[in-house]
């Protein structure tokens, strides 16, 4: 392995990762500068249960009509994010646990996942370009982030065999993209996972307190009979 690739896989990644972490810390501090809303009313449900339900929403596709009307989008979401997990894992496995990619089955699993995520990325790009409503709301950041992620998956397919003896370019491209990602992500929509806990927490807390979450599907006992305690509080 060349010295350049070695530094790129290690020191450069660590510096970029430290940069991203520092920016995220600042970002979180910025978020916490804003006051959290307070609730002064008696609840009929549990805020904690509501928060848990809200956070788990991602694993309950049946709970949202938008998904029930569009199951393929949910599967695309799952595949795309599995691709993200695979790509991020590969950035650590290659430099720090390379022997794992000596196991062919593991390489295949990663390659299939990344390839599938790549195709989903292409589908998402087509969807974003072809639907007028999505075109209207899409920003350059939306397009760029999607193209970047999709390309990252593609580069990952070639990088995970980790065969630098056969040529270092796939690895150089993969780690160069990783470095760029680590620096760019905190300023782009890709960092939505940082905000997800906030939005989901507050929505879950509110809806849990009011008994809206967990969602009722019918047949439950009315609160008038069930929650006498809350009513007479």
């Amino acid at each position, binding site marked *: 392995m060349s010295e350049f690739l070695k530094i790129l896989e290690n020191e450069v990644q660590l510096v970029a990762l430290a940069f991203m972490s520092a920016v995220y810390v600042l970002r979180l501090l910025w978020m916490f500068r*804003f006051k959290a809303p307070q609730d002064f009313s008696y609840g009929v449900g549990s805020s904690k249960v509501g928060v848990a339900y809200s956070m788990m*929403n991602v694993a309950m596709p049946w709970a949202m009509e938008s998904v029930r*009307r569009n199951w393929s*989008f949910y599967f695309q979401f799952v595949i795309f994010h599995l691709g993200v997990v695979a790509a991020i894992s590969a950035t650590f496995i290659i430099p720090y646990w390379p022997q794992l990619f000596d196991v062919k089955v593991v390489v295949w699993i990663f390659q299939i996942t990344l390839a599938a995520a790549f195709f989903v990325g292409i589908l998402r790009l087509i969807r974003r370009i072809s639907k007028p409503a999505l075109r*209207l709301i899409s920003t350059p*950041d939306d397009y760029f982030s999607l193209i970047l992620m999709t390309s990252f998956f593609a580069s990952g397919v070639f990088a995970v065999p980790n065969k630098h003896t056969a040529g270092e370019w796939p690895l150089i491209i993969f780690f160069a993209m990783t470095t760029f990602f680590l620096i760019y992500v905190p300023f782009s929509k890709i960092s939505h996972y940082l905000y997800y806990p906030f939005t989901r927490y507050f929505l879950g807390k509110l809806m849990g307190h009011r008994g809206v979450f967990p969602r009722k599907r*019918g047949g439950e006992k009315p609160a008038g*009979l069930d929650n006498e305690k809350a009513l007479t509080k």
Partner: protein
Amino acid sequence: MIEKSINIEDVLSLPLDPKEQKKAVEEKVPCVAEGRLKVYDPNTNNVKKFLELLQSRLNRSVVGSMTACVHCGMCSEVCHYVLARPHDPTMVPAYKGDQIRRIFKKHFDWTGRIIPWWVHAGSPKNDEDMNRLKNIVFGTCTGCRRCTLNCPMGVDTAILVRLTRGLLTELGIVPEGVFVVSKDQWETGNQMGVTEDEYLETLEWMSEEVGEEIGDPTFKIHVDKEDCDFMYTINPREVKYDPRSIGHAAKIFYAAGESWTMPRWGWDMTNFGLFSGDDKLGAFVAKNLYEAAKKLRAKRIVISECGHGYRSTRWEGYNWAKYSQDISSESVLVTLIRYISQGRIKVDPSKNSLPVTFHDSCNIARSGDLTEEPRWILKRVCTDFREMFPNRADNFCCTGGGGALSMVEYKPLRMEVAKIKAQQLIDTGAKQVCTICHNCVDGLGDLIRHYKLDMQVVQVLDLVANALVVPEKKEEK
């Protein structure tokens, strides 16, 4: 049900009409003179004021919704505006949310401040831009929260719309109807400008009617009676246009042998602050009611049938007023369930034999907690209850929510998007649609007339009162 789609530019370019605002200034209406209700001033820097107000209103929950949208477009799958106008991309909830989000990004977010074009960050340049913003947030969204519950990220677009409405209300850049109703509620303590005499006369009239019906001439709706089991609060529409609903409630409470009262002041459980985004008005109205209950030493507050009224009084009002709840409050539905389940009233479902379906009010199903309660009651007071699909928190707005009924200029768009609700009603095959919201009564009534449906709107109290087996004269506590 096919009709010509209106041009959205005609809606978005509707001008600001400050006629009523000018009149209020000339007449020195106290809430305007004292600055509680703002009027539009073309000579001030409204953009600057807007930004200052925005900064002061940001909290962690709002900032989350400002930053978390990934523009996935899932909200477009569920909004009745989009479903009724699929050709119009400006109907997408994320687009509506983006109108305030872009301002937030431009002034408060990192990327938007440095490279605004990259994230479509921008600022309103003048009052014309803000007038357009007014038409988007007041005219193209009823704040039903359907998109909120269907957003994978948990972005609360309805809260962003309400926030923007509130900022514009502080500048007087609002539809004329919003100004007028806000003024009425500030001035009279109720949305419809009902005077105290009108209110008391109506209660007296209803006392006589109910007394006659139950054969008890001594029956009386008590006003400001202390130490009752509950204080009953109503929608001013009941006084103005539908007093029989007060009579129905009174008859049922009588049959249950209830100890109850209505307050002389603080009886309006509706709250236009929810619609205008004006937390100060919201706090004022809610506090009137909470303090009335406290003064009367009522054990509970019972809220009549009203979607936004229930949400405002039961939930939001305490937060707007920063008033720690000290008296339990409940919907009249819960009271009815208690009566039926404890055998305090008897009902005969054969009195309601028409096929009836139930429409869940957005403010109750998605922002409240009552979805099973009305069904529990309807199944006991009607013989032919038919579920509407989708229902509960998935139900569609009646299209009269979010204060839309007071904004006549947006009615053509409202009626166009009502075709989703109209189809939902037709599919039930019911002859009656029951709702627990006075706004929905009018919203559904409008669309039933517009789409010429063979259906009538009723409320739970109507059906329970109709099914009520009136007992022999009962001792009132």
